[in-house]
């Protein structure tokens, strides 16, 4: 059974990111899905203390917060999806915080500089926004999802869903819903 981690970094309950991870969770009934809604958890920023560095395997983190509890899952899952709103032309600070906490996976000497015990994971970054320079956002999202190589992802996808400023506006866009369905299929595929 595929182990999938769905991360919602949006502070909004019932927002577009919430809708995205809920739809995926429904579709992935036959997978072992863990939902991590950052607004419901305590996640501190990485302090770059370096405790996790220089180890042969993923050692965890000195911080005793909710993020630390999912590090083993980040290491062993088959796929991860992060749904985030765009704030100030980028993923929001909560999503940025999540990615910075990948630091325990950093090992310069290893493949993709990753200490993971499992390579070949799938990672998708799904950004929702009101509008703006979409070509730049898409390029930026494609850059950002590359960061998931740190936790062992090798198959990467990124998406920018535009013109959905309101809570749950994505439901009015069948083209986006179809893309989410395809992401779900992709996560389940070998």
């Amino acid at each position, binding site marked *: 059974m595929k182990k999938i981690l769905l991360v919602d970094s949006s502070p909004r309950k019932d927002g577009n990111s919430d809708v995205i991870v809920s739809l995926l969770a429904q579709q992935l009934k036959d997978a072992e899905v863990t939902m991590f809604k950052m607004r419901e958890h305590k996640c501190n920023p*990485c302090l770059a203390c370096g405790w996790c560095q220089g180890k042969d395997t993923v050692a965890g983190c000195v911080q005793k917060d909710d993020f630390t509890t999912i590090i083993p899952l980040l290491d062993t899952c088959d796929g991860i999806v992060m749904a985030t709103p765009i704030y100030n032309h980028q993923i929001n600070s909560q999503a940025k*915080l999540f990615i*910075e906490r990948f630091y325990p996976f950093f090992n310069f000497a290893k493949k993709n500089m990753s200490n993971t015990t499992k390579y070949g994971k799938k990672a998708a970054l799904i950004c929702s926004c009101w509008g703006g320079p979409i070509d*730049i956002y898409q390029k930026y999202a494609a850059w950002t999802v590359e960061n998931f190589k740190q936790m062992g992802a090798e198959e990467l996808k990124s998406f920018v869903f535009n013109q959905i400023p309101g809570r749950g506006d994505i439901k009015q866009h069948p083209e986006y819903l179809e893309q989410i369905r395809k992401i779900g299929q992709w996560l389940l595929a070998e």
Partner: protein
Amino acid sequence: MKVLVITGSAHGKGTSALMADEFIRGAKDAGHEVERFDAGKAKVHGCIGCNHCEYGKNPCVFRDDMDGLNPKMLEADVIVLASPVYYWGLSSQLKAVIDRWQPTVFSMQGHKKVVLLTTQASNEDWVVKPVDAWYKNLLRFMEWEDAGRLAAKGVMTRADIEATDYPQQAYVLGTQLH
């Protein structure tokens, strides 16, 4: 001029802190009034996008260190951002401050200068490319004038950066503000 330096590192004596220190020394030597805000030590809740502030009509729902920073940002002639590059971006602590510009963003548009100082362990240019793309967007959206962009590369530790002329470059940039 009023200069506001916002740093993003959790390290008080790290590489980007040194860049900020030297920039501040230069700006003070040139007679500018400098304020500093260390986001890595501050209490700043991430923006929750509630738009209770209605872009500045009402105060933010959070009472934290942004209360003190907001008036300083509005008053500043120059905003200086100093951050380590973490995962191809500014630190999340600094990103949290920037996301909290929601109430001040439109009041700050159009009449400020900005400086961006970054430090990174890697020597590779691609590591900082997304930061530069974002910076260009920031300049365009805020209609701010770039008053200096300094990217220190290949500096993992304090000793690394002390062995380069990046701190000197940051000092000079501070003296050149006008």
